[in-house]
C-alpha cells in the first residue's frame, strides 16, 4: 500500500535568504523521485521539510492526501537514510534495526522476526550481533537502510545516500538500493548532486536551482529535452549552438557531444547544426575519444565525443575541422 506524496507551494527562508521559493511536486505511489541540484539549491531543505525535521514557513506536505504539516517526524511514519547513516554506536546491528519497532512498542517476537527479515533483505543476515564499529562503509549503509525500512514506513527519504562511499561501491549500491526499493514498492524521495546517480536510480528527476524547480521528468526527458540552458549543461555536457533564422531572433540548439562526429574533409557538404573550427585538445577516455574545438564563428568551445578512436595525426592542435551532427532529429531546440 504505497502512498503518494504531494508537496504544495513550500517556502522556507533562513533570515533574508530564501532557500525554497514555493515548490510544487507530486509523487506517485511507489515512485522514486530524485531531487537533483547543486549545493545551496534547496534540495536537502525540501527533504527535511518532508521529514518534518524542518518547519516550512508556508505551503503544505501531504501523504496519501492527508496533510502531515502538524505531525512531528516520529508521527509521520517515514524512513530516513542519513548521509552519515547515523547508526547508534552503542547498539548492535540488530538493535539498530529493531529500534523503530521498539519505538512502536512491537512485541519482542515481532521485533526479532522483522529485524531478521530486514537484515536478509540487505544481505546482512549473519551480521545481527555485530557492533556497528566493526562494519565497513557499505555494510553500514545497508544496516541504515534496513533500519529505515524496518517499521514499514509510508515514505523513504534518502539524503545523499551514496556520498560517503567510494566510486566502485557507489555504483554497486545505486543498483542495490533501487532493487530493494522496487522489491518493497515504497515511495521514495532521494537527494543528490550526482547526475549519474540521479539518472541511474530514478523514475523521475526533479531539478532544483536556487530554490525553484526548473524541470521534473524522466531521466530520458530531462536529458533529451532539457527545459532550459541550465538543465542542458547541468545534466551531462551540452554544446549550445545559437541559431539565427531569417527574422534574426533564433533559438539555441542543444547538441550532445556524442551527437557530433569530427571531419577533417572540409570540402564535404555541411549538415544541420554542424560547425567549423580548429582543434584545441584531444583526449582519450578508453571507449570514447573527446575532441575540443574552438568554433570559427563564435570563438566558443565545442565538444565532440566520438566512439572508438580518431585519426590523431589529422587532429593536431590548430588543425581545421568540421563537427557534423549525426542525428539532427535528436537535437533539442530551446526558444
Amino acid at each position, binding site marked *: 500500500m504505497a502512498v503518494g506524496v504531494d508537496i504544495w507551494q513550500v517556502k522556507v527562508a533562513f533570515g533574508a535568504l530564501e532557500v525554497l521559493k514555493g515548490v510544487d511536486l507530486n509523487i506517485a505511489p511507489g515512485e522514486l523521485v530524485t531531487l537533483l541540484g547543486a549545493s545551496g539549491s534547496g534540495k536537502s531543505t525540501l527533504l527535511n521539510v518532508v521529514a518534518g525535521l524542518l518547519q516550512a514557513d508556508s505551503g503544505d506536505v501531504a501523504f496519501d492526501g492527508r496533510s502531515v504539516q502538524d505531525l512531528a*517526524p*516520529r508521527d509521520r*511514519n517515514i524512513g530516513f537514510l542519513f548521509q552519515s547513516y547515523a547508526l547508534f554506536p552503542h547498539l548492535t546491528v540488530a538493535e539498530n534495526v529493531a529500534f523503530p519497532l521498539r519505538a512502536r512498542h512491537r512485541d519482542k517476537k515481532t521485533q526479532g522476526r522483522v529485524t531478521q527479515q530486514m537484515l536478509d533483505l540487505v544481505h546482512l543476515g549473519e551480521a545481527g550481533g555485530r557492533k556497528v564499529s566493526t562494519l565497513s562503509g557499505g555494510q553500514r549503509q545497508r544496516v541504515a537502510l534496513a533500519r529505515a525500512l524496518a*517499521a514499514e514506513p509510508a515514505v523513504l527519504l534518502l539524503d545523499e545516500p551514496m556520498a560517503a562511499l567510494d566510486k566502485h561501491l557507489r555504483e554497486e549500491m545505486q543498483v542495490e538500493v533501487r532493487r530493494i526499493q522496487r522489491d518493497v514498492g515504497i515511495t521514495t524521495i532521494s537527494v543528490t548532486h550526482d547526475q549519474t546517480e540521479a539518472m541511474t536510480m530514478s523514475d523521475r528527476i526533479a531539478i532544483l536551482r536556487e530554490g525553484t524547480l526548473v524541470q521534473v521528468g524522466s531521466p530520458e526527458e530531462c536529458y533529451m529535452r532539457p527545459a532550459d540552458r541550465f538543465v542542458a549543461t547541468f545534466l551531462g555536457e551540452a554544446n549550445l549552438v545559437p541559431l539565427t533564422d531569417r527574422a534574426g531572433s533564433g533559438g539555441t540548439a542543444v547538441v550532445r557531444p556524442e551527437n557530433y562526429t569530427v571531419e577533417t574533409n572540409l570540402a564535404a557538404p555541411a549538415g544541420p547544426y554542424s560547425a567549423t573550427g580548429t582543434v584545441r585538445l584531444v583526449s582519450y577516455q578508453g571507449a570514447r575519444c573527446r575532441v575540443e574545438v574552438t568554433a570559427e564563428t563564435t570563438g566558443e568551445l565545442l565538444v565532440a565525443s566520438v566512439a572508438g578512436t580518431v585519426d590523431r595525426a589529422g587532429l593536431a592542435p590548430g588543425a581545421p575541422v568540421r563537427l557534423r551532427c549525426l542525428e539532427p532529429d535528436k537535437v533539442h531546440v530551446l526558444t
Partner: protein
Amino acid sequence: MTALRESLGKSGWAVRLAAGLAAFILFAVPALVLVATSWTEQRFALFPPKGFTLEWFGEVLTSKKWLQPFGRSATVAAIGTALAVILGVAAAIGVSRLRSSRAARAWRTVMILPLAVPPIALGVGLYNMGRWLNLSDGRMALLILGQMISALPFVFVLVAGAITRLDPNLHKAAQTLGANSWLIIRKVELPLLGPTILAAAVFAFVVIFDEVVLAVFLLPPGVETLPVTMLRASQETMTPALTAASTVVSLLAVLLLGGSQMVGRGKKGGADAP
C-alpha cells in the same frame, strides 16, 4: 600533537622543561611534604619526618572524632551529587533542545554563573535565609542546596560538552524512526553520555565533599563535616593526625576520580565510531 611539537622547534625543550619544573614545584612538592609528615613519630607535623609510624593513620581510621564527620560528609556529598547530576544532566539535554541560539547562550551563562558567586557571599545569603525562614533544623537542607549549586556548573559543562560531540543526526534519526523524547533520552542519549555522566558525578562528589566555606556558615556548632573538622584542627596546631587525615581523603579522591576516568576511557574505546 606532532605538528605542534615540530612547530615549537628547539624552544620546545625549554617549554617542556619549564612545565615539568612548574609541575614539580607547584603540584608535587607540597603534596609530598604533606604526605611525609603523616608518618612522623613527633607530636607536631613538621618536615622532615622523624622515624616512621602508622600510629596517626590508625588514630584517624578508628577515632570517632574523625570518622563521624567523615560519614556526615559522605552522606551530604552523596545527596548533593545525586541532585547536581539529575539537574545538571537534565539542564544540558534541555539546553541542547532549545532552537533559539540566544536562549541557549543565556542558559549557558546562567548555568556557569554560580562559579562567579563568591562562596562566602553564598554562605552569608543562605545563613540569613535560614534565620529568616526560622529553619533551625533545615540548615542541613540549605547546606546541601548550596553545595549542590557549587557543583552544578561542572556537571553542566562536562555533559553539555559531551552532547555537542554527539552526532546531531543521531537525534534526528531517532525522531524519524518513531522514537518519542523520553525514548531518545533513555535509549540513545543517556547510554552515549554514560561515561561522561559518571565522570561528572565523581567530580561533583569530590567538590561537595571538600566544600568548607558553606559548611562553616551553615552547620550548627558541634555538627561538623570533615573539612570543617580539619579546618578547625589546623587553626589549633598542625598535628600528624591532621596530615594523615588529609592524606587519606586525598588518596580516596584520587582513587575515585582516577577510577572513573579509566572507566570512561575504556567505554569510549569500545564504542568508538568514526
